[in-house]
């Protein structure tokens, strides 16, 4: 936390970030040499922006490290799919293992980063991303709870607001929880938030000032250290 940080310093873009720009930013923030699991949906976009020199190893929970890009044409092999059941490829140095080993990799804290989508994230990093709680919804959890509790860092990618304009960063989640206090960072179209036991700080904003952001988000926001400081 830097006392001289101003709202001006935090704004790094004059407009909100699109999905691809956000994915590019997440990719850039992943430390070289990391082992990473990218969740289904928006987080999958991150793989498009990982650079070879980052030497990132991707894990897929259905039993593989060293997953390559989506398979096309002759590369498609029904025995080689990702957690979203999309055909993928293997990179040199890939390995396969059974499901219990795959989740031991996760639960055992061996993954550096997991990137997930979310319905809501609380001020202290609780995550809700598996179930709307609607009475007629068929519940399906998959690996969501395992991913949320296992990785050293859990990054969330989402739009800040719902279609109805409600903030997805909330004081306490109203949707059923996926994990408690697990999210460390939230990438949204309007800002990057750092979450933890001490509440929420803002690393940078896109197309709004910290004050304008605070008007949208119902939890107290602190200015984090500006980018590059």
């Amino acid at each position, binding site marked *: 936390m830097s006392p001289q940080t101003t709202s001006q310093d935090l704004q790094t873009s004059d407009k909100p970030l699109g999905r691809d720009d956000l994915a590019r930013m997440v990719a850039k923030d992943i430390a070289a040499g990391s082992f990473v699991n990218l969740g289904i949906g928006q987080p999958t976009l991150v793989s498009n922006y990982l650079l070879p020199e980052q030497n990132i190893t991707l894990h*897929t*929970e*259905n*039993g*593989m490290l060293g997953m390559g890009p989506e398979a096309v044409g002759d590369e498609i*092999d*029904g*025995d*080689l*799919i*990702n957690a979203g*059941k999309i055909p993928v490829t*293997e990179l040199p140095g890939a390995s*396969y*293992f*059974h*499901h*219990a080993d*795959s*989740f*031991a990799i*996760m*639960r055992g804290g061996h993954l550096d980063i997991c990137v997930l989508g979310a319905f809501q994230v609380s001020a202290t990093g609780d995550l809700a991303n598996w*179930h709307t709680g609607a009475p*007629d*919804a*068929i*519940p*399906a*959890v*998959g*690996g*969501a*709870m*395992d991913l949320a*509790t*296992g990785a050293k860092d859990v990054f969330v990618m989402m739009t800040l607001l719902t279609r109805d304009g409600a903030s997805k960063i909330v004081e306490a989640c109203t949707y*059923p*929880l*996926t*994990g*408690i206090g697990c999210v460390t960072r939230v990438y949204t179209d309007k800002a990057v938030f750092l979450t933890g036991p001490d509440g929420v700080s803002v690393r940078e904003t896109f197309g709004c000032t910290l004050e304008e952001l605070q008007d949208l988000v119902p939890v107290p926001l602190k200015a984090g250290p500006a980018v590059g400081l």
Partner: protein
Amino acid sequence: MLNFVDSVGEAVAGIEDGSTVMIGGFGNAGQPFELIDALMDCGATDLTVVNNNAGQGDQGLALLIKEGRVKKMICSFPRQSDSWHFDEKYKAGEIELELVPQGNLAERIRAAGAGIGGFFTPTGYGTMLAEGKETRIIDGRGQVFETPIHADVALIKALKADGKGNLVYRKTARNFGPIMAAAAKHTVVQVSEIVAAGGLDPENIVTPGIYVNSIVKVA
């Protein structure tokens, strides 16, 4: 005791009504479609099925569910764009669902095969899937007690078997196969190829033959 059988029908012949059946596969990868079809034909009903999903489209497990042969599903992800047969039975209250986080599902299956009476895991702590379960704080983290999942029969798919029943798999089709093979009293495997004992490198065996009871080659 290990048997090599000539048909998938023979391979599933002993499955009784009311059995708990583990079925390997994640999506279509590693799913033993021919064995599931044989289970359909053999007529066994009132089954509890353990699988990651609850059937897709109009084939395999989805058809077993459609025909009302499954009384309970133990799985992590029943809802998919093409899981209409499960959806219909569930909404009609005609099938029971035990929803388990995927890693807990895998570890509960592994625990059964390894003779473990249960384990504490952080996954699910504080969520509705831990309601009613014993919890403890271990190493500063909330953890939930989970019990093993045993089965009467496992139906799995591997790439090759040797004459001793040792198995190797292919890519992400391995998924639940090795742990289900160990967790069931009777394990039935469909393979693409059977080689003589010694035809697989012992260093590369994934499932040792001790866990395997029936093997059938499926073209």
